[in-house]
Each structure stands twice: as structure tokens, then as C-alpha cells.
């Protein structure tokens, strides 16, 4: 087990360097004139330009620049955004906001998916089962760039059930609508997987044994079937975190939530290289750690799995 974790951590280092390298290269490629982007519309003297070029190593080649950047990153210096704020302090502001949103979305998605998935897995072919099938297909087919503004318009403005925007120190109530939109990204697949898993486990021999033991129906489902059925679902929920992060870029923009996605969206539009690379680097780390945790959880849930 210990050796497995060490091996995975070493793999993570490689993945981390690879991912940041690609993002850095992409931002480098789209950069037109970063100095002009920095100063905006104001004119700039040759000596100022030379000083900034010197300061940001803009004359060096790509690899040298990447080297300087990584050196800073590994010593905890995420650099300075084009907006002149420290990227590290922006990260510290943005992450808690996004974490709350993402966790709320995960809870909403998992609750709906597991409850509805178990019921439709037990009552296959029922009205409930067919209704959830149709609804999940509609939700699956709807891209978030459509869903987020639509939900804001319908539930936030027309019906007025929820606040239309959230803002910086949003309450859970304000976050509910954006979190619901975000949850809709992953709820459909999680529900289908739960349903299939429950349906498959209901046919398993051990269920017959549990019934032959004279256990109540609730215990057969709730204890014997559920524990087996949730193994693939929990793995999926972990992997879905990636989808939630990418979904957060649009959702946070639409609902005006100053989280990771919001900052990334702005960074990409203003060609703010340090900001984008810094934020994506942290995203990559979070994603890798979550994947490792999910894999370890998998072993904890299924005793047949042992990591060497």
C-alpha cells in the first residue's frame, strides 16, 4: 500500500510537469505583445519597454522563460498577474469560493443520482425509471453554456425563486442555483451508473442468500446491494471533479462568482499568462490528488482490491 502511494506520487510529479509545460506553451504561443497588454491603451517609452522586457525575461527563448517560471513556482512564487496582483494571493481568494461551489454541486449531484438511481435500478421499466431516463437525456444533451444562462433567466429572473447572481461572500442559498447548474453536468452519468450498478447487483447470487437469511427487503437493499453498487459510483464522483472544474469556468462567469473559474475566464480573455498558468497548475494538482484519493477509497470500499 505504502509503495503504491509512493509510486503514484512520483507519477504525479511527471504529470504535473507535463501539464504545466503544455499550458505554459499554449499561453506563450497566443501571446502577442504582453507589454502592451500590461500597460493597456497608454503609450509606453522605449526605456520602460526595455526595463519590463528585462524584468520579465521576455527576450529569452521559450525554454529559458519556462525555466524561470518553474523555478519560481517550486519556491512558492506564482509570479505576478498582468493586473499587478500576486497570483498566490488571487489563488488564496478564489479557491475557497470555488471549493464551496464545487462541494455543494457534488453533494447535490450525488444525492439526486444515488436516490433516483437506486429507485430506478430497483423498479426497472417503471414510469419513474422511464421519466428519469428522458430527463437525464435532456440534461446530458444540454451544454453548460446554454444551461447556465437559461437557468439564471428562468429561475433567477423570471420566476425569482433563487438569487440571480452570487457575488464574493455568497451564502449557501445564493450558491444553490449555480451549484445546481454545475451538478447537472455530472448528475446524468452518475445516475445512469448507479441504476446499472444496482440492477446488476440485484441479480447477484449474494442477494438471494441475503433473502434466504430472512433479512428485510430494506436491509437487503440498503446494506447488501447498496455497498456493492456504490463502488463504481464513488469512483465516478471523484473523476467528475474534473468536469465540475471545467464547468465552473462558465458557471462562475454567468453567476458572477469570483472563484477559480471566474479568474481563469478573465485570464484567458486578457492573455494573462502568469495568472492562467498559475491557476491551471493548482487545478492540475487538485485533480491529481483527488484521483489518488479516489483510487485509495476504491480499495477501502472493495476488499478484493489490494494495491501492491
Amino acid at each position, binding site marked *: 500500500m505504502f509503495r503504491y502511494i509512493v509510486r503514484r506520487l512520483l507519477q504525479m510529479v511527471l504529470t504535473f510537469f507535463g501539464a504545466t509545460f503544455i499550458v505554459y506553451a499554449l499561453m506563450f504561443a497566443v501571446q502577442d505583445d504582453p507589454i502592451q497588454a500590461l500597460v493597456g491603451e497608454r503609450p509606453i517609452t522605449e526605456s520602460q519597454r526595455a526595463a519590463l522586457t528585462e524584468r520579465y525575461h521576455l527576450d529569452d527563448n521559450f525554454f529559458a522563460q519556462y525555466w524561470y517560471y518553474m523555478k519560481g513556482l517550486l519556491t512558492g512564487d506564482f509570479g505576478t498577474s498582468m493586473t499587478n496582483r500576486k497570483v498566490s494571493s488571487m489563488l488564496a481568494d478564489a479557491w475557497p469560493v470555488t471549493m464551496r461551489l464545487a462541494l455543494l454541486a457534488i453533494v447535490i449531484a450525488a444525492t439526486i443520482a444515488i436516490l433516483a438511481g437506486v429507485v430506478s435500478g430497483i423498479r426497472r421499466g417503471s414510469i419513474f425509471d422511464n421519466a428519469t431516463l428522458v430527463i437525464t437525456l435532456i440534461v446530458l444533451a444540454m451544454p453548460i453554456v446554454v444551461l447556465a444562462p437559461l437557468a439564471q433567466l428562468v429561475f433567477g429572473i423570471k420566476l425569482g425563486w433563487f438569487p440571480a447572481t452570487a457575488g464574493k461572500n455568497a451564502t449557501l442559498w445564493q450558491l444553490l442555483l449555480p451549484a445546481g447548474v454545475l451538478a447537472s453536468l455530472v448528475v446524468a452519468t452518475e445516475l445512469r451508473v448507479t441504476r446499472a450498478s444496482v440492477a446488476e447487483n440485484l441479480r*447477484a*447470487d*449474494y442477494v*438471494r*442468500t*441475503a*433473502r*434466504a*437469511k*430472512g*433479512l*428485510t427487503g430494506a*436491509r437487503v437493499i440498503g446494506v*447488501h446491494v447498496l*455497498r*456493492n453498487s456504490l*463502488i463504481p459510483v464513488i469512483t465516478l464522483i471523484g473523476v467528475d471533479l474534473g468536469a465540475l472544474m471545467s464547468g465552473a469556468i462558465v458557471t462562475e462567469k454567468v453567476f458572477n462568482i469570483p472563484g477559480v473559474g471566474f479568474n481563469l475566464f478573465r485570464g484567458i480573455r486578457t492573455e494573462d499568462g502568469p495568472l492562467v498558468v498559475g491557476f491551471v497548475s493548482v487545478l492540475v494538482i487538485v485533480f491529481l490528488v483527488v484521483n489518488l484519493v479516489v483510487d485509495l477509497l476504491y480499495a477501502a*470500499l*472493495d*476488499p*478484493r482490491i489490494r494495491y501492491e
Partner: protein
Amino acid sequence: MTPVTDIKAQMDVLPGLDPRAPLLHVDDLRVEFRTRDGVAKAVNGATFYLNAGETLAILGESGCGKSVTAQAVMGILDSPPGHVTGGRVLYRGVDLLKLGEKDRRKVRANRIAMIFQDALSALNPVYTVGFQLAELFRKHRGMSRASSKLRSIELLDQVRIPAAKDRINDYPHQFSGGMRQRVMIAMALALDPEVLIADEPTTALDVTVQAQIMGLLAELQHQRNMGLILITHDMGVVADVADRISVMYAGKIVEEAPVYDIYARPAHPYTKALLESIPRLDHKGRQLNVIRGLPPSLTDIPSGCSFHPRCGYAREICRGDQPPPSYQIAPHRIASCHFIREVLGV
């Protein structure tokens, strides 16, 4: 909750139970599966009885309805598509088919228990065997976790699992095939049932382990004076342990007899054909007698005697509308065939 050590103390009362009534009497049991492809008649009037301390073997080919019969007796048919459409299952005078689900549940494991063919898939892979055993004491007897764990260790000892105390926290996949089947047996016997139904208990095991498991079953049965229904297609296993045999074909018992009689002189052509299809050393080099044809499709069972398309004795009367009546040949001997005399060679 106070720990209960006397296992009988909290046994639920079953309405209408008569301790002097026969242990188990299955009468004209009918089960069908309603699927999209039609109605499959899996059990078509199965009748048999079981006394305390006795072993009854239900013998038949795959798909003859023997496992379905067992599941119907236990009340664990998958329904839908399975439905019991007729008959009675009398346990000590109580018709189990008429009981509500709550009373029925109290019968399972408490009075009639069952073990299955493949213990690896029949045990829940994600719980320890200790959990799966203790669950019975906790849910049926209201025992505490600690005392039900002690009882579970005792049980594993009784089925002779070495170092039971250490193995109680192991998962099913950590046991060998034979040890897993012992766990299964321990689980079935946990609440001291009067009837044990063993559905092909040794089919998944290799021969030496088979003998050990059958020996263990026979011993535990003797200790507890328990009735055992052994469902199998293995004529060798039957000859060793059974007192009586019920031969099943297309969901019906076609012959019932004490084990010695059936091997000596079968009265039904199907039984006779089954016995002749066993490979024998003194017939080495000769062609093996196999039963020609296939078992009938349960959606389309032949009229009259359902065995007639494969039977060497079949004549016009066998193809008619009426199945052959059950003839009493001797005390405890019944066969359903128009030509018993010819088959017996009288």
C-alpha cells in the same frame, strides 16, 4: 439489549404451527415464469415430503425445475418473473404460501435454511464472513454485536474452519472453495433450522473436498436431527448420502423411492435411462447409453407424459392429453408411468 445465549429463547411464534405435524410436505406445487417470450412452466405439480432426520435427494437434469422448487419453498423466487400459481408448502401444518411476507421471513433461516452451489458468489464480497454470520443473530435474535460475534466463532468452529477466531474478520475471497462452502453451511445452520435445503452444494468443488463437505453435512444433520433436501444431478453423491430419492423431470416428480430400491430396480423409464447413462468400469470400451434428445423447453412441454418424446417405452397412450397417474408400487414407492411393469421387468 441483553445478550441472549439460549438460541431458542427468542424464536418467533408462527401462527397455526403444530409441532406434531409432518416436517415438510410440498403438495402439487406449480411455478411459472412470465417472460416476454411466453410463459415458462418450471414446476408442474411437484409433490414430495420430508421427515425429520431424513435426507431426500431431488434428482434431475439442469433446467428440470429442482432449484426453482427449492426457491419457491424458501419464498425467494425472483418475482416478477417467477410466480407460484398453485399448490401448498406445508411446514409443520402451516401453509407457507399463505403466510404474509413478515411471517414468511421468520421462517427463512430460522426454520428452513438454504445453501447454494457457488459459495463465492453466494457470499457478499464486501463484508467479512463474521459480519455476514453475526447479522443473523443480530437481526433474528436481537443479540449484541459482541455476543453474536462469539456465536459466529463457535459456528465456524463447528464446521471445522481452522483458527476460526482469526478468520472471522476475513472476506469470502480469502477462503478456499471448500472453506467457503463451510462458511455457507455455518450460515445456514446458525439459527438451528429444522429443514436444510442444499442446492448442488458440492458441484463447484473438486472431488476430495466434495466428500468432506458431504460428510460434514451428514454429521451436522445427524447431530441436529435435521431434515435435508439435497438438490443435485450427481447420482454418485445421491447414492452416498440420500435416504430417499425424488426424480424430477420437466417440473414434476416422476419417481420417488428409497435410495436402494431405485438403484436396484428403477420404475420409471427416465430413472432407468439416467442410471444407464452413468459410465461403468465393467462396460469399458462399449458405447455409453445416453438419453437421446434434449430436456423439453419449459415454454412448450409435451402433452401427456412429458418424457414421451425421449422414451423407449412410449406408445400412443403416453402422447394423449392426460399425464400418467402416480402408481404406488410399494410402501414409499411411487412412479408415474403407464408401463411400470415393463420398466421394472415384472
